[in-house]
């Protein structure tokens, strides 16, 4: 079992008074994965990360990180983990470099001889070398975020836990973080990254989990997550009525369109859409059936729902944070 999952939790629960911030979480993060941890504001991502890192005690349930129980074996686990938790935090009156030296000397496992060199490399890696001697109170939000990433990179890590790493970064910074995560993953590091930027997660993650109001509503590979979402077949044709009846004969249920019959008028051509069950015949068979019945097919597409569709479907459209 150990070695298979970099992070494994069982019914992990955290209560703040009467409120359940994290509710019976069963998370499995495979070793070597780039794992996106998604969820709306207040869904319990940061609280979960705090429990994984031993900052907060779970109300019930268990967590194992790198195969070892947390927080019991915290001293053995944390030196192998780099973390960014709920944004960066530093001593404003110290320079960026001095802040990193301070945090590195807090780790009794960090070799003292290489401290300066490692701090220099970490700063270099996040593009902060030119501002290394500047006091952190003079840093911009994105510079602080970069310094936070540099802190996580002070030593080679087996697991990186990054809570919204691109928060406040400019487009170049965001791209570089993506590159950084890819290069870490290429080096064998498991990356656990919380975010609500779905496009970003789609670009870099191999796996993802979606949280909603403290509970896990989905997890798996990205393909699984997208695939579990609705697949939709869309036909572009002037013969909307005929197309509809063909789809119905094939066992599909055309969506209610604008005119209420799964048909939307778009000038001469109309689009007919129908949800495609996962176990349904291959899409090209639909086209063949349509053509055989004389429907003039001018366009046909099957859309696997985007991660965003899936996310919204699972976490709701509402804008208000869940209580």
């Amino acid at each position, binding site marked *: 079992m150990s070695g298979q999952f970099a992070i494994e939790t069982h019914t992990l629960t955290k209560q703040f008074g009467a409120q359940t911030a994290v509710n019976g979480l069963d998370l499995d993060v495979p070793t070597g994965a780039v794992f996106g941890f998604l969820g709306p504001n207040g869904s319990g991502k940061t609280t979960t990360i*705090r429990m994984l*890192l*031993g*900052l*907060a*005690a779970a109300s019930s349930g268990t967590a194992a990180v790198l195969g070892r129980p947390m927080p019991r074996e*915290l*001293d*053995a686990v*944390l*030196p*192998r*983990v780099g*973390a960014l*938790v*709920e*944004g*960066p*935090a*530093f*001593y*404003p*009156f*110290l320079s960026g470099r001095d802040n990193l*030296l*301070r*945090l*590195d*000397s*807090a*780790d*009794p*496992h960090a*070799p*003292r001889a290489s401290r300066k060199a490692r701090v220099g*490399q970490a700063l*270099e*890696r*996040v*593009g902060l070398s030119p501002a290394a001697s500047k006091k952190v109170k003079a840093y911009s939000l994105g510079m602080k975020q*970069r310094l936070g990433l540099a*802190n996580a*990179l002070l*030593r*080679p*890590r*087996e697991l990186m836990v990054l809570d919204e790493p691109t928060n406040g970064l400019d487009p*170049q*910074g965001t791209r*570089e*973080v993506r*590159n*950084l995560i890819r*290069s*870490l993953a*290429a*080096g*064998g*590091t498991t990356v656990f990254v919380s975010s609500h930027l779905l496009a970003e997660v789609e670009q870099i993650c191999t796996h993802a989990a979606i949280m909603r109001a403290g509970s896990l509503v989905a997890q798996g590979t990205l393909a699984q997550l997208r695939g579990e979402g609705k697949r939709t077949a869309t036909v572009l044709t002037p013969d909307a009525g005929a197309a509809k009846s063909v789809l119905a004969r094939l066992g599909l249920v055309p969506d209610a369109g604008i005119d209420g019959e799964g048909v939307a008028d778009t000038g001469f051509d109309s689009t007919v859409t129908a949800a495609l069950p996962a176990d349904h015949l291959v899409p090209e068979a639909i086209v063949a059936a349509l053509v055989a019945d004389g429907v003039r097919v001018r366009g046909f597409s099957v859309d696997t729902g985007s991660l965003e569709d899936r996310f919204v479907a699972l976490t709701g459209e509402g804008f208000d944070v869940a209580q």
Partner: protein
Amino acid sequence: MPSDPQAADSGSPAPTPTPADSSPQRGTLWPLLASELSVLFRRRRTAAMLATLAAVPVLIAVAVRLTRSTTPGRGPAFLDRITENGLFVVLTALVLCTPLFLPLTVGVTSGDTVAGEAGQGTLRYLLVAPAGRFRLLLVKYVGAAVFAVAATASVIVAGTVAGLLLFPVGQVPLLSGDVVSPWVAEGRILLVGAYVCVSLLGLSAIGLFISTLTDVPVGAMAATVALAIAAQVLDALPQLAWLHPWLFSHYWLGFADLLRQPIEWGSFGSNALLQLGYLAVFGAFAYGRFATKDVLS
């Protein structure tokens, strides 16, 4: 960030820490302690507090020097002896600073220990480093104690220098009537300094404990200073005589016993015992609280 992906790649060695890499090094407390002291003493606030403390004996010396008139028996102890002997500047300053200025600065520093890191958010990064909760608390306490020593030293050094510059220094009459050389007297002053440092150990432990209770450093500082004042108020109420020997401030001004010939070690011993008791109790409270505390800041 490096703009070519190769630079990013080359910076990621395979993450397989060697055993030597992941086992704690010898003398593991020292790097963190050194870093703690450097952060503490590089803060402008610390420098300002030490400078304020140093200003007390200087102000006393200058005021006495300018007025030249001291009424015997009026003002703080030893004040009327300054014009005869500059070494009394230090003692006067310590009598003035012990009840208020020193507890104030020690309360600020010890109240800030954990709450300051929590309020700033650096506590979570120290713990994830992982500093270890016990190690961190120990280092924080030692840092606060070192500050107490520095604060006392600040008064003594400034007082000695001001006394030497502005007043004659000769044979020093002790409280027992014996007269000793200035060197012996300076030795006694250092003993008094040690006494004052020991006096502040209990308060530092109380501040450390209060600091683990909150994420708001100002609150912890204020509470610690308020306790120091409350203890002295209680110590002044004769109705509470039974309580007095248990108050951490009870022996604060008992250093006069070190200025007799032979030295009376009684109050030094009682004070040290009491302070160690407070250190043990509040140190344990602080660890009990901090070991299980959820770090949510």
